[in-house]
Every structure is written in structure tokens, then in C-alpha cells.
């Protein structure tokens, strides 16, 4: 299969070449937006007792007195060396922070998307079998309602009901209960790390803390999943080849298999875009449930004008979505004959 390997390599090569300008564009856009935003961190950094001389010295030290384009060039050179800079809030290297926080966000997003797919795809398929039937109408209304609900508000109401009134959920703070010791950090995902050392107590606590945010997030993620699956399946069921198959008396099972197979590509592609858009939406859920993930950190940084962090955050999101799209397109290329 040397040809296949070469094909994959060429695909990845082309994709990287095409993605590079998009990534560069994103970095540039973020850089300019944040720098021109009028947020001057120097006053914050220097503290309440600084005078003008101290501010200027600090500005020079942070190279904030240089022209914007020169600052951008410096930044790009540093990125090329794998240095994403340092958060002015804490002097902590951004890359370390990302490494710490990303697993928490991934945990939330992957679990939710997986659940949403498990719920949304079958519902969407069922709805598509009889468009405008009662199941379709109900599922459409529910998915639209889920889609219309502000995530953060849903989170708040979940806290009210499950934490305050029912006392089922743990306090919405962090990823583990206070009295539970965290497992040794291997992957950064508490679930995985707890599994690795068979620490069921930590595992249970982590799951309990994830339950509400994941449930809320799943609601959000499942809505478009239902809608999209339904649309894809309806389109396939109305396609010439399905009509032809039915005209030839193929069994319902065969037709369903055929539909599934043909739905795989558009569904995968949709799952990819869903995954990337949810990664960004995770910020609000993390904020509501104090999950201290990447999103919460990035959100905060935008409000505070912490340049390096915002750029690191956006870059991570962009790279992640690029990677997701690449992997998905690669899978599609391998399973899909039309390419």
C-alpha cells in the first residue's frame, strides 16, 4: 500500500500548505484586535502605586513601545521557536497553561459531542423516516428549543435545580471535590488519569462534577446534530439511488444500510465542525461550572487584555480545528470513493 501512504502524505502536505495562511490570518487578526483594543496592561501590571516612569520602563521591558508590526514580527519569531509568551497576569508561560487546561476542556467537549452524537443521530434518523410525522415534529421542536436556550442560562438553571434544590449534584466548582485527591497527572484528563491508577474515588468525583456541564452541553450539541442528521438522511432517502433500490424491492434493512453508508461522510464532516464550534462554546459552560478549562481562561484573558494568553488561546482553537478538519477529511478521503 505504498501508493496509499504517499496519497495520505500528499494530502496532509497540501492541507498544511493551505491551512498555513488561514492560521497566519487568524493570528494576525487576533494580534491586531487585542493590541488595538486600548487595553493597556502596563498600569495593571505595575500595580496601584506606580508612577509614569515605572510605567514607561515596564512598557519598554515588555517591548510594548515598539510599532505594532514590529511587535507582531517579534511574536511570530517567538511562536516559530515554540514560545507563546508569558501571561502578564501571572508570568506563567502560556504553553504550560495550555497544556494544563486543554485536557479539562477536551474532556468536556469530547464527552458531550459523543453523547450528543449517540442521542442526536438516531433521533435525526428516526425523524427522517417520516418527515412531518409526529416524531419529526416533536424532535424538531425539542431540538429547536435546545438550540434556542442560552447555554449559560441552562447551566444556571441546572445548578439551581440539581444543586440548590435537589442536592444531587456536587457544588459547581472545579473538576473534583475538595476532599478527593487528584490522581497523578499523566494525560491531564482526570478521568483518564484516574482510570490509569484505578482511582475510583477520583473517577467518581470527576464524573459527578462533569455530569451537569456535560448534560447541558449535550443538549446544546444534540440540537444541531438532530437537525443535520435529519436533513442528510432525508436527502439520501430522496436520492435517485435509494428510489432505485426501493423500486428494485431491496429490503428495508439493505436500504437503511445503504443510507447509513452514504450519510457517513456528511455526518463526519458535520461532526468535525460541531466539535470545533463547541470547543469555543465551552468557555461559557466552564465559566458557569468553574471547570477551569481553556475556555474560561481565554475568556478571562480577552476581558483583561492579556495579549499572550488570548493569542495562545485562539491559536490553540485554530490549530485544533484545523487538525480536526484534517483528520476528518483524511478519514473521508479513505472511506469515500468519490474523492
Amino acid at each position, binding site marked *: 500500500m505504498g501508493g496509499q501512504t504517499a496519497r495520505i502524505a500528499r494530502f496532509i502536505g497540501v492541507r498544511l500548505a493551505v491551512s498555513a495562511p488561514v492560521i497566519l490570518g487568524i493570528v494576525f487578526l487576533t494580534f491586531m484586535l487585542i493590541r488595538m*483594543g*486600548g487595553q493597556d496592561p502596563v498600569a495593571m501590571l505595575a500595580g496601584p502605586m506606580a508612577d509614569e516612569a515605572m510605567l514607561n520602563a515596564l512598557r519598554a521591558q515588555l517591548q510594548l513601545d515598539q510599532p505594532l508590526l514590529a511587535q507582531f514580527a517579534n511574536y511570530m519569531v517567538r511562536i516559530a521557536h515554540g514560545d507563546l509568551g508569558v501571561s502578564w497576569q501571572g508570568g506563567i508561560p502560556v504553553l504550560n497553561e495550555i497544556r494544563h487546561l486543554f485536557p479539562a476542556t477536551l474532556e468536556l467537549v469530547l464527552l458531550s459531542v459523543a453523547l450528543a452524537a449517540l442521542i442526536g443521530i438516531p433521533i435525526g434518523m428516526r425523524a427522517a423516516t417520516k418527515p412531518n410525522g409526529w416524531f419529526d415534529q416533536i424532535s424538531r*421542536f425539542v431540538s429547536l428549543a435546545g438550540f434556542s436556550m442560552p447555554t449559560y442560562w441552562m447551566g*444556571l438553571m441546572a445548578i439551581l435545580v440539581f444543586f440548590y434544590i435537589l442536592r444531587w449534584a456536587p457544588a459547581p466548582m472545579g473538576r473534583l471535590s475538595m476532599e478527593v485527591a487528584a490522581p497523578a497527572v499523566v494525560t491531564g484528563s482526570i478521568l483518564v488519569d484516574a482510570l490509569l491508577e484505578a482511582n475510583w474515588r477520583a473517577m467518581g468525583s470527576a464524573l459527578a462534577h462533569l455530569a451537569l456541564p456535560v448534560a447541558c452541553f449535550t443538549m446544546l450539541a444534540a440540537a444541531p446534530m438532530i437537525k443535520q442528521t435529519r436533513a442528510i438522511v432525508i436527502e439520501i432517502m430522496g436520492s435517485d439511488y435509494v428510489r432505485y433500490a426501493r423500486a428494485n424491492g431491496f429490503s428495508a434493512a439493505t436500504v437503511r444500510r445503504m443510507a447509513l453508508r452514504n450519510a457517513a461522510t456528511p455526518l463526519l464532516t458535520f461532526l468535525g465542525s460541531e466539535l470545533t464550534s463547541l470547543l*469555543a462554546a465551552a468557555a461559557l459552560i466552564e465559566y458557569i461550572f468553574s471547570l477551569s478549562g481553556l475556555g474560561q481562561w481565554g475568556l478571562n484573558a480577552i476581558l483583561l487584555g492579556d495579549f499572550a494568553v488570548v493569542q495562545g488561546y485562539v491559536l490553540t482553537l485554530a490549530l485544533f480545528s484545523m487538525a480536526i478538519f484534517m483528520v476528518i477529511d483524511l478519514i473521508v478521503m479513505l472511506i469515500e470513493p468519490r474523492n
Partner: protein
Amino acid sequence: MLAMDKTKAQAWAHGFYVHAIGLTRRSPTFVAGLCMVLFFLGVAIFAGVIAPYSPTESFSYDILRAPSDRFIFGSDGNGMDVFSRVIYGCRYAFGIAVPAGLIMVGIGLPLGLIAGYKGGLLDEVLLRTLDVLRAFPTIILALAVVAATGQSLISMVVVIGVLDSPIFARVVRAEVLNLRASTFVKAAVAMGNPAWRVMVVHILPNAILGATAQLPMRMAWAVRISATLAFIGVGIQAPTPEWGAMIRQGAEYVITGEWWAALFPGLALMLLVLGFNLLGDGLTDILDPKRRGVGK
């Protein structure tokens, strides 16, 4: 297959001219959506009549009172009447969504029209922009831009409208590509009509019809994202009775059981967004002949 073999455009036009009641009967979703949106619009218009208090009047000695006869939705952390604030909040919801929608259409329609019809550089740029938007979470972008361009209501409206315009342009572009391939446009071109005439006379009206269903959904998005920005704490100045900002203020008290300050504005927000979405979904049903009950 049936005798009613018309061009797609005629079918749309047909669908559009028919009496509104006929349209709504066809799609219960549409009726529900329309009723909800009209209800909120009515509330927005008559807010002054409905609301018992000024939305920004602070009752200093009634901080965070539970719902009662006096404050039917309770009072918030600043001693303001939640009910009156929710009522007046409708005005902000429409006041943001409608101008943002106009900006979106104003930019997106010509952009999509030209990109779809002419192709070339503009089309390329549009597609690349969409790529960037796809990889760049809109909420983060909106947040950064609003934070950067001064935190005013106006900048929020403009940012939302501008950020969403490429998405609308894409819808228009897809419609235009479809129409460009249709017989009647080919015929118009063959008859020697200039490009602008074909675009304006033959494509534009049909493209607008095709993109109409998208409009309420984009409005829903505008309402949602503006509330989200306000919830995060940008764009809206206290004590403006904007729903997102109210949820933000009320969020502080939810965990200790003072739920009313966050519940009601969120409920209103959800219902209006749902209304717009239902409206859009229903319109898709009505305007898309492929999904019609009669015919094929």
C-alpha cells in the same frame, strides 16, 4: 411529474403571494414562531403600558425580594423590578437584532450576489473569509472586537451585523449559483441582457426569496449572541434592562436560591430566540418546494 411543472422561481413566487393564512396553515411551526415573535414585538412596543415601574428605578429598601404582588417577578440585586426590566428588555432584543439584521443583509446580499454571479477574486475572498470564520469561534471574535471597539450598544450592533454578513452572503451565493444554472437566467443572458440587469432583475428577487428563511434564523442568532456578550460583561452598560446583562447580574444569586433575577430574563430570551427559529424553520418549509406536502 404533476401538471404543475413550473420553474423553481415561479413556485417560490407562488408560495409568497398566497395569503398569509394559507401559508401558516401549512406549517404549524411557522404559526407558533410568528405568534411568539409578534407577541414579543407587541410587548416591546407597549412596554411603557405593561411595565408597572421604570426598568431602572431602584427601590433601595427592596433588594432581591422574592416574587410577590408588588414585584411579580421579584426584584434584583439593585432593587429594580425584574418584571419591568424583562418587559423593557424586549426593546433591546429587537433594537439589537433588527439593525444588526439590516446590516447583515445590507452587506451580505450584494456580497453574495456578486460573489455568486461573477465568481473570481471576490468569491475566493468570501470563501477564505468563511474558512477563517469557521476556524475562529464567532463568540470569541465578537468578544474581542466589541472589547476593542469600545463597549457601546452601537458597536455591538455593528459587530454582530458585520460578523454575520459572510454567513448570509454564503446563503445568497448558493442561491445565486443555483439560479445561474437555471433556464430562465440562461435565456436572459442569451438575450443579451447586461450582467447588472440579469443580477438585479432576474436573480436578485429570486435570491431574496430563497434567503428569506435564513433571515429569522440570523435574527435569532443576533439576539442570542448579543445576550451572550452582555452576559460575559461587554457591550451593555448597567442598568440597561438587557436580558443577557440581567442574567449576568442574577447569576450571582442562583446558587444560593434567589433564582428569580436570572430565571425570567433567560426565559424571555429563550422564547424569543425560539420564536425566531421556529419562524425560520417554518419559512424553510413554506419556501422550499422540495419539502411541500403537495406535489412530488
